[in-house]
């Protein structure tokens, strides 16, 4: 039996949520900005002791995480620098992102999908697939009715301004392509017998999995449209793209996976941060590395893991940089251990004079936490201290404690990305 897959994608997600919350923003070109120099962490501002006028914020090094429909019409694009977006659209309002708000709406969205779908796979903060083969009675008309019910529930739970585009098809690739084809608030149903013709009408740039680089590569091979792509033989695609050639070959024919992936244990836990100014001393770099490592360690312990591998990367102000990977002798559980392991590698290679723009650190090779069976009192004492600190964090939230060595660091919550910081 062919499966029936729904793909749902919020339209201008963060901007629509802001326009839902504040009706005076509706119809206006607005951009939701990410963190950046002089931007603000909304959750912190709500607990702060002074008023902040938005027009005093400069949003330097900030990017547009979402533009409203009105801003998009005027040429503002996602990931544009806010200064550049303001050049394109001077009347645009820039709003600081509020991840807690978006996280709550995403949770409601996923709850609705789980109510209707046989299986659900979250694809990003504002996109998800739902397998509705059984729920729809295996019938496309049933799937369309279900999609309308889901849309009504989203309007009820998240607000009428938060609209979704929905694609219905027999696999995930096609369902996503269908939802992309009509925005905003579209509903596109592609039945199996229509799939090949439907794909022909879409530009290659709309294909999920064919990015700018692959598109350019295909162009060199003479494929500038789906029709010309179909003329490329499979062996050529395999020789040019290795096994990814299978995906490209199938995508051109509307074929793809219909399997929804369940939530799995993470393979790694990481954190990266772009700083509002370049870091130019080893003390400053180490302090921020330690603060990031503490975040990684806390998230790891919360999920009951220890790490056996540490990797990291540095990006300089000229966007050059380097990465490293280190296997650890003993499993790591503490932020200080993680930071020191990384620092041993970084210290030798880092070129401080270039100014560090971004630090990323990631723990992988995750193993379940065992008991603290160390023979040494020092290790057992450290384990007890970490448990106590984790209890404090659970009760009072992240930021409840901080190492003295990281007091000069502060991180604003990320607005974009797959996960919200406050949920980890």
């Amino acid at each position, binding site marked *: 039996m062919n499966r029936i897959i729904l793909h749902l994608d919020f339209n201008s997600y963060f901007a629509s949520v802001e326009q839902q919350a504040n009706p005076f923003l509706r119809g206006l070109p607005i951009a939701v900005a990410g963190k950046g120099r002089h931007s603000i962490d909304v959750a912190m501002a709500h607990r702060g002791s002074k008023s902040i006028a938005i027009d005093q914020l400069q949003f330097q090094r900030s990017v547009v995480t979402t533009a409203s429909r009105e801003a998009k019409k005027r040429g503002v694009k996602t990931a544009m620098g806010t200064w550049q977006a303001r050049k394109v659209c001077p009347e645009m309002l820039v709003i600081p992102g509020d991840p807690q708000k978006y996280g709550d*709406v995403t949770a409601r969205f996923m709850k609705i999908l789980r109510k209707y779908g046989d299986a659900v796979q979250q694809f990003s903060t504002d996109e998800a697939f739902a397998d509705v083969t059984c729920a729809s009675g295996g019938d496309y008309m049933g799937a369309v009715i279900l999609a309308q019910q889901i849309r009504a529930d989203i309007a009820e739970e998240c607000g009428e301004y938060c609209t979704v585009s929905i694609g219905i098809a027999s696999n995930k690739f096609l369902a996503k392509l269908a939802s992309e084809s009509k925005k905003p608030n579209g509903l596109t149903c592609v039945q199996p017998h229509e799939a090949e013709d439907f794909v022909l009408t879409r530009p290659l740039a709309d294909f999920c999995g064919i990015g700018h680089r692959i598109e350019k590569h295909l162009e060199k091979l003479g494929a500038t449209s789906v029709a010309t792509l179909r003329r490329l033989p499979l062996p050529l695609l395999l020789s040019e793209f290795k096994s990814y050639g299978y995906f490209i070959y199938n995508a051109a024919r509307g074929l793809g996976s219909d399997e929804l992936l369940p939530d799995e244990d993470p393979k790694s836990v990481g954190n990266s941060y772009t700083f509002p100014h370049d870091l130019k001393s080893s003390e400053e770099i180490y302090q921020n590395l330690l603060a990031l490592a503490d975040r990684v360690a806390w998230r790891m312990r919360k999920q009951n893991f220890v790490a056996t591998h540490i990797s990291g990367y540095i990006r300089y102000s000229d966007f050059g940089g380097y990465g490293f990977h280190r296997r650890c002798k003993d499993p790591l559980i503490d932020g200080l251990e993680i930071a020191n392991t990384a620092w041993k590698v970084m210290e030798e290679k880092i070129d401080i004079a270039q100014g560090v723009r971004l630090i990323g650190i990631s723990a992988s090779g995750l193993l379940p936490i065992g008991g603290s069976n160390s023979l040494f009192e020092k290790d057992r004492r450290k384990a007890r201290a970490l448990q106590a600190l984790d209890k404090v964090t659970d009760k009072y939230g992240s930021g409840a404690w901080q190492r003295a060595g990281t007091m000069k660091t502060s991180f604003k919550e990320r607005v974009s990305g797959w996960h919200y910081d406050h949920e980890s």
Partner: protein
Amino acid sequence: MHPLVMHEFMNDPIDVSVDFTGRRIRPKRVRWGTKVYDIEKVNLVHGAREGQKRIFYFSVSDTANFMKLRLDTETLEWRLVEVYAP
């Protein structure tokens, strides 16, 4: 920034009158200093956690203003955290 827009983040104590409907509460009137605002619409309610503490934010508006209200469910204290006036 649009020259006529006032948009501010703050953390000011306020008094709020509410309606209880089932398990939901709906802000009806806000007293901020000497000013009183009658809420016309509750546009969005969202929750957040600060450790074990549950916080609710109400995005509300009257004919001329948008306000975001913060309710601390532990202390039952209301705060005005955002104001927008076009």
